């Protein structure tokens, strides 16, 4: 049997004519197109979101962090920093930990990141995120987030106090039985450290913005009771944070006594949730295509009934059951392919005009569909991944083609003599 004959007949049967079956075919086509379009748009937005979130994570977390296994701090970070420099990455020492911040009578727990301003590049993300004041970290100075400033009610130039956990710990002793009692009354009086707010930042990542105070590393070491010049970690900044497996392995091999973690390992749970969310979205939305494929099944069942005599005739002329089956499966393939192509074009248009559409819908329904204060994004992000588009297309065409199998099989099983008598 000639494949071209099957293709020719399938195409002629598919080509729309002005009858009820054509209308159903067009509805099936629209169903496939809408399904593919929605899948493409949602996955592109999910990917865009994930990328935005990853970009925020990269800007707020070290690409790779090196910590000491044995102690809470690295006494001499300089040799490690020099070693990282040789590997072609930028490394800075940091001392981090939780403190209690106080402004007037307001107290809130905060996370201090003490950094060495001399080691930092000019383009570090916090200096670029200053919204008030300046990025200055001399001894006794701090840069704080706008969330904290709003919560505690201070501004640039205000004095805030940070309660050191090391000093607080020194105020109490615990004996072998776990009994807590006051430490030696002869100790010096404990006083919190005072810092002048020089700048207020907004990096656009809520967790970071709500918790972090930036100070000089020497002040941070003093707060936590670590030796001057030490660091709790070394933060490594790479040229390509999405491709750090090589440098990660090298650092692990060169510094075997240290705990080395990438930003992806630090945020694994969160990134896994994002990936699962995207997969779930695909799984749920693929049902739209499945419904469209079942409408193809319905359409083709109608076509088979309507064309029973023609199928009988084709068999009388010598067409085999397999030929008849292929003709109808090809029709499912045509609907799937054309519907998918139209859906991809529609999806591309929607993704291109997504922000305009969003504004239009916000205006029409008078609600903010994409609140800026929640997502910290002025525009709806989207990123079309060719792999996703190919996967959607293959899924759609395969489902639609499979949807044609049942009516095609039914057509192939027709008895030609009975089919020719069919009224």
């Amino acid at each position, binding site marked *: *049997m*000639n494949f*071209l*004959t099957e293709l*020719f007949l399938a195409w*002629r*049967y598919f*080509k729309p*004519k002005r009858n009820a079956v054509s209308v159903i075919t067009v509805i099936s086509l629209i169903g496939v197109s809408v399904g593919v379009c929605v899948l493409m748009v949602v996955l592109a937005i999910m990917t865009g979101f994930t990328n935005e979130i990853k970009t925020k994570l990269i800007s707020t977390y070290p690409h790779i962090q090196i910590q000491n296994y044995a102690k809470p701090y690295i006494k001499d970070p300089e040799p490690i920093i020099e070693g990282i420099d040789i590997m072609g990455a930028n490394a800075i020492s940091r001392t981090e930990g939780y403190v209690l911040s106080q402004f007037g009578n307001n107290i809130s727990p905060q996370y201090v990141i003490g950094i060495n301003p001399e080691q930092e590049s000019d383009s570090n993300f916090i200096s670029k995120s200053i919204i008030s004041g300046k990025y200055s970290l001399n001894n006794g100075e701090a840069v704080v987030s706008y969330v904290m400033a709003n919560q505690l009610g201070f501004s640039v130039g205000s004095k805030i106090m940070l309660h050191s956990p090391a000093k607080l710990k020194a105020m109490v002793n615990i004996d072998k039985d776990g009994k807590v009692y006051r430490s030696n009354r002869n100790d010096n009086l404990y006083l919190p450290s005072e810092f002048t707010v020089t700048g207020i930042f907004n990096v656009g990542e809520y967790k970071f913005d709500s918790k972090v105070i930036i100070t000089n590393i020497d002040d941070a070491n003093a707060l936590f009771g670590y030796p001057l010049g030490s660091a709790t970690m070394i933060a490594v900044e790479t040229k390509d944070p999405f491709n750090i497996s090589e440098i990660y392995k090298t650092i692990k091999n060169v510094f075997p006594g240290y705990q080395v973690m990438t930003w992806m390992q630090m945020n694994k749970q969160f990134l896994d949730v994002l990936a699962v969310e995207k997969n779930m979205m695909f799984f749920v939305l693929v049902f739209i295509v499945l419904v469209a494929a079942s409408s193809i099944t319905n359409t083709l069942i109608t076509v088979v009934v309507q064309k029973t*005599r*023609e199928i009988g*005739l*084709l*068999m*009388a*002329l*010598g*067409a*085999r*059951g397999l*030929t008849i089956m292929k003709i109808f499966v090809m029709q499912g393939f045509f609907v799937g392919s054309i519907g998918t192509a139209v859906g991809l074009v529609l999806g591309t248009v929607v993704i291109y005009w997504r922000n305009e559409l969003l504004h239009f819908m916000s205006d029409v329904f008078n609600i903010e569909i994409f609140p800026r204060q929640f997502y910290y994004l002025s525009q709806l992000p989207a990123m079309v991944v060719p792999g996703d588009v190919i996967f959607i297309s293959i899924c759609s065409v395969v489902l639609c083609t499979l949807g044609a199998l049942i009516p095609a099989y039914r057509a192939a099983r027709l*008895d*030609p*003599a009975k089919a*020719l008598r069919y009224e």
Partner: protein
Amino acid sequence: MNKLISIKNVYRTYKLEKSFIPVLRGLDIDIYRNEWLCLLGASGSGKTTLLNLIGCLEYPDQGAITYNGVDVCNISKKARNELRIKNIGFIFQAYHLLPELNILENVKLPAMLSSCFGKKATEKAEDLLVKVGLKERLRHRPAELSGGEQQRTAIARALINDPELVLADEPTGNLDSKTGEGILEIFKELHNNRARTIIMVTHNPEVAKLSDRIAVIKDGKIENN
């Protein structure tokens, strides 16, 4: 005479809901090469059933049908298909043209089903359509043709693969007498000049008179041969 088809003791019963309707009951007939046989009989006597059995469109419940000495009831479906494509041309009372195709494509269809696709098939189809007087109608759809023109298209389609046997089921049944005469002229030409074997089902004794032999089916058997 050279025997083309031999039908021995053929039975065929149809099941209609819960009842069984015996149509052919031990029918015997031989059909010879190049003869024009007309099958006559009342409605429901089994004329079309016999035609379908000869055309390998259905199987008998019992009995044997041989074509050129080959038992067509015991060959594969594929072989029966091949036999239909290469050796048998069908002409139906209701024409059965595909409305999606123009008449040239309709005529080419059996050639295409036998893997003859392209210029050769087109030329042959055009030649046949010219011979049946449809030179000006090649690109027309069946719906744009009269009944007579549609039946002439169906005849051209039946002949595209040069079959040695033409099965015609009341080919003039849906036509007025004048148009019917035109169709019968084509059958005469087929029989006399192109030496085809024709088996024609008809109700019309005048049409039957044109044939070499008339077989009347009654009570599921050939009554008068």
